[in-house]
């Protein structure tokens, strides 16, 4: 979505730290009763009551909120209230301010006030168009814009700005719902669940090397798929990592299924890629060919690393570490493991994955200095990103003991989500190869059982535990047949 990419790069610079710009930190004073509830520390807003934070969002005649604040508060407020409720409150504050202006000596300033309100709504609709999917929110938006237009009837500029805003909002909503429909239609069961093979396929069936034997090309196609998937993840989807947990606690349900779909699809992709790697290795009958297959995937993972596609790399390494693959000792003994050791070193979980984090930092720097979209690619290991946000949420409370919202926490979550969003908007420099992608997304994947069967058939059980599980597995399969 080209509009969104503009919005994100403009709302939050790369050095977004939640710093309040001089002269913008304090509200115009007088207007909001709760504004005294905001607590600053070295110029940073660190906490405040929900009411004061809401008032801090609404412009006055001589105040306009910092753009990082707008993004962060809009993103985090959904943890506490649905967007349409926030919009309703914003509408109320607007009305109060308008009445004050109309009654006071500054009536002439009504026009500039209304322009600022429209500017705020514009930023909101651009950064979070999905908030307005909801009919209630759309009705609130209309009510506010209607009131604001009245402030400036003789001049059409406000009216024009509102019309433009509404139009682009409707366009991005339409684009998203179209994408949604398209995805639902294109969603072959294979993409997400994978057709699960209970038995071995005919030996003649082609394998991945028959489709693509160049590790670099395969890594590029994996990157293409990754970028395609992440581009449909929005900041509010990522915020669900935080708000879903709370809804579990409160037995309240927030958000709907369609919104989590893109996250779910992306999670599934990771598991599917790991399982595909394991399937490709385990189903090869000849040991020599299995060795070649392992070496091929090691090379693919290395190319992914070089590109900055850490997510695919981690999925591939996980696939090679799945027991049915890892237990193939005879096969592994023929593999030149030096290369694999290097990869495993990068993805070693020790010290909180510090090797990976260092590599990610390097890639981030490269991306910031990049001249080409090729150099811009950073695809982090998504599950580690999710885990970081999850723990960030777990170690810091939403509220401080005095009832204030712990806004420091939300600056940090928002900063990380924003950084992720800049990565999702990189345009993929590699051309799509339909044949390879269709194989990657639809090739049959073995179930865990089938992987073990194939693995044991390739290299028989080695100890009594394996013998037992092989026996149990065969009995289950026989009974089923």
């Amino acid at each position: 979505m080209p509009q969104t990419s503009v919005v994100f790069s403009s709302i939050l610079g790369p050095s977004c730290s939640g710093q309040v710009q001089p002269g913008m930190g304090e509200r115009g004073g007088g207007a909001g009763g709760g504004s005294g509830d905001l607590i600053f520390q070295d110029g940073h807003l660190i906490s405040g009551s929900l009411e004061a934070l809401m008032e801090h969002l609404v412009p006055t005649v001589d105040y306009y909120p910092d753009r990082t604040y707008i993004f962060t508060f809009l993103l985090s407020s959904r943890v506490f209230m649905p967007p349409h409720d926030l919009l309703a409150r914003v509408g109320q504050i607007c009305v109060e301010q308008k009445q004050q202006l109309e009654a006071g000596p500054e009536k002439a300033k009504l026009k500039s006030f209304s322009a600022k309100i429209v500017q705020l709504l514009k930023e909101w609709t651009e950064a979070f168009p999905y908030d307005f999917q909801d009919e209630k929110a759309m009705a609130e938006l209309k009510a506010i814009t209607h009131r604001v237009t009245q402030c400036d009837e003789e001049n059409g500029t406000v009216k024009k700005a509102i019309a433009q805003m509404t139009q682009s909002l409707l366009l991005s909503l339409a684009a998203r719902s179209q994408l949604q429909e398209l995805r639902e239609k294109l969603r072959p069961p294979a993409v997400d669940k994978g057709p699960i093979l209970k038995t071995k396929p005919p030996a003649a069936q082609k394998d991945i090397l028959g489709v693509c034997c160049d590790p670099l090309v395969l890594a590029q196609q994996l990157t293409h798929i990754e970028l395609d998937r992440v581009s449909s993840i929005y900041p509010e989807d990522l915020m669900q990592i935080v708000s879903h947990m709370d809804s579990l606690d409160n037995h309240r349900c927030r958000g709907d299924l369609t919104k989590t779909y893109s996250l779910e699809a992306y999670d599934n992709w990771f598991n599917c890629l790991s399982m595909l790697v394991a399937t490709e290795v385990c189903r090869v009958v000849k040991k020599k060919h299995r060795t070649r297959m392992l070496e091929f995937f090691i090379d693919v993972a290395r190319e992914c690393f070089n590109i900055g596609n850490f997510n695919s790399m981690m999925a591939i390494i996980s696939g090679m570490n799945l027991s049915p693959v890892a237990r193939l000792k005879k096969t592994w003994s023929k593999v030149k493991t030096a290369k694999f050791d290097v990869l495993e070193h990068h993805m070693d979980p020790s010290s909180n994955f510090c090797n990976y984090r260092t590599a990610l930092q390097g890639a981030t720097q490269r991306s910031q200095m990049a001249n080409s979209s090729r150099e811009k690619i950073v695809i982090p290991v998504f599950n580690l990103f999710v885990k970081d946000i999850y723990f960030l949420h777990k170690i810091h409370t939403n509220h401080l003991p005095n009832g204030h919202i712990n806004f420091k926490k939300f600056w940090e979550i928002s900063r990380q989500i924003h950084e992720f969003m800049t990565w999702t908007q990189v345009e993929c420099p590699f051309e799509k190869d339909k044949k390879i992608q269709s194989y990657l997304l639809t090739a049959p994947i073995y179930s865990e059982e089938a992987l073990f069967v194939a693995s044991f058939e390739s290299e028989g059980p080695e100890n009594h535990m394996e013998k037992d599980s092989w026996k149990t597995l065969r009995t289950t399969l026989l009974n089923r047949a």
Partner: protein
Amino acid sequence: MREYKVVVLGSGGVGKSALTVQFVTGTFIEKYDPTIEDFYRKEIEVDSSPSVLEILDTAGTEQFASMRDLYIKNGQGFILVYSLVNQQSFQDIKPMRDQIIRVKRYEKVPVILVGNKVDLESEREVSSSEGRALAEEWGCPFMETSAKSKTMVDELFAEIVRQMNYAAQPDKDDPCCSAC
């Protein structure tokens, strides 16, 4: 100093992260940033010998099933957590123990079975004796904890260190710290 990696497993919502957070941060929560190297690490003294524990927690990412074997491969001790107010989570734990043994290819893996949320006694769905019976079947210690009311959390991590020490003793020729 001995260094150990402990993997915490269990289905979503059983309170794994709460146990980990309680252990690694104690009461000084403000300082912590989950992306730093030392976040999941803590020094612990057990039976008057100090060691360092690093927790590999899968909390919040249970849906990435294919990564579990990688975590297991890297761990030396395992804490299997269910929620004693949720019978399903108790059922979910059994295949996880099988998985550990499959990956480790060894039956005497240091494991502790943990029923968490003992503070919610009135909503209990899994009795202590059920938990104890399963632990006996596995030949491992059993504990009931509460991350919320800080019950038995430090004891739990001390016990897993003991288990790992115990498991490491017979074959001293296999030092665990080759990576350091």
